[in-house]
């Protein structure tokens, strides 16, 4: 991950992004994004499809080239839950071995690590007997739960969730947001979250960043999510749908 010594982090700041832009194949897909994240904060990134939200996350993680500055507090453990399951499902990898990719001993794993796995699995609603199943045999919902459990297993200080509830059942949606709250309260985890749902942003985020290739707003949800901002971000039709959802909460 690229770090810059020119940008000094204040004591409680764990991420400082200054004028970040991503250009892929000559097209500027994200430009001029600047924000800071304090320890324990929850930042939600919202915006329509194709707004560059996932790309911004990938830039934060050093997975795509970017310009500008992205400075993480050194030595942070980062957990990442991508939108789609990113593992080659044709590989003969069991769930246990998927977790062992994070352990010190792949061939002879530490017993404490293996025992800890069943606890993390129960948090995301997976039974222990899933450990010996090949990942290729799991359903979409199980893979999404597995991804969240996998990202949490080493208790990272920061978690990045890219639409963690996309394509999963309603029951688990609640579980995911319950997990988000527990992570914040019990482990003081800093959370960066991409979400389409305005109501979720109101409920869980301390800060919101509106992105549609450019940064259109940034601040506390109640301060910056005014109707005109949402219209500007999502367009007229989407705005009413989202606003309606927000009011039903």
């Amino acid at each position, binding site marked *: 991950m690229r770090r810059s010594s020119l940008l000094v982090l204040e004591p409680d700041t764990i991420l400082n992004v200054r004028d970040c832009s991503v250009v892929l194949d000559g097209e500027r897909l994200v430009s001029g994004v600047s924000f800071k994240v304090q320890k324990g904060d929850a930042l939600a990134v919202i915006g329509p499809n194709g707004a560059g939200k996932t790309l911004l996350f*990938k830039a934060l993680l*050093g997975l795509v080239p970017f310009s500008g500055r992205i400075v993480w507090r050194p030595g942070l453990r980062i957990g990442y839950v991508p939108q789609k399951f990113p*593992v080659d499902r044709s*590989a*003969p990898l069991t769930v246990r071995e998927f977790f062992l*990719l994070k352990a010190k001993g*792949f*061939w002879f794993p530490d017993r404490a690590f293996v025992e800890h796995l069943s606890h993390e699995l129960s948090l995301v609603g997976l039974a222990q007997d899933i450990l010996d199943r*090949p990942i290729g045999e799991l359903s979409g919902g199980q893979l999404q739960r597995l991804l969240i459990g996998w990202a949490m297993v080493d208790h990272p200080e920061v978690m990045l969730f890219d639409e963690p509830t996309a394509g999963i059942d309603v029951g688990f949606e609640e579980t995911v947001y319950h997990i988000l709250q527990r992570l914040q309260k019990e482990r003081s985890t800093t959370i960066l979250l991409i979400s389409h749902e305005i109501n979720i942003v109101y409920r869980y985020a301390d800060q919101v960043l509106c992105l549609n290739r450019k940064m259109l707003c940034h601040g506390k949800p109640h301060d910056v999510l005014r109707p005109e901002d949402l219209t500007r971000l999502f367009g007229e039709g989407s705005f009413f749908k989202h606003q309606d959802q927000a009011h039903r909460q």
Partner: protein
Amino acid sequence: MYVPPLSSLVIASAVGIASGSIGSFIILKRMALVGDALSHVALPGIALALAYAVDPFWGVLLFVLAAAAIVWWLEGRTTLPGDALVGLLFTTSLAVGVLTIPDQELIHSLFGEFPALSPLAFTITAGLALASAAMTLGLARQFVFRTTTPDLARVQGVGRWFDLFLLAIFALIVSLGIKLVGTLLMGALTIIPASIGKNLAKSMRAFLIISTLLGGIISVAGLFVAHMFTFLPGPSIILFGVALFLVSLVFPRSVRL
């Protein structure tokens, strides 16, 4: 007697074990054909070494390492049709090699021979092959991480350098095995044990161990066949491996390891 020379058996088992271990990752990376083409690059290396009266091993190692670095570089540039360029580059090497290697050396370069090595060369070849296998299995976590989920690996600090390292080990193993199996068939020796392993295993660790052991077994058994019928060792080893592969296709899923 029908027993091949002991030195050949040791080389075959060491090179086979190394090929089986690295081949698992070549299969996982879906680079079987690239790996196969990579071994063809050895041919101009052999020609160059023969022209300067150097041991062909060094010519092969130099050319295959350089080719591995080019593959790695191309991998990072997604807009290029990587496989087409790789195919072009390596078939060119084959054409150059066939034209430049003296006729009497050509058949052995392409299909291998019973290696006649000095005691020093024998020790180095067997030692390096076993060390490559040990290194491959020792770095299994990083290699599995990179090949199955490169983005998550990157986030956990396992970067692209491991891909280059994997290809470099592959290049070394190809260079060690070419004397025995030949440039045309060396790629196959890395692919066949892993393909059988994938049919037999239901976990990654079982897959890696089965591929590694099968690499050794196929090479030694193929050598016995070659010695018995005075065949070239390369084709005998490959055909024996293919026969085992066909058997593995009917292996029931319920009894996978």
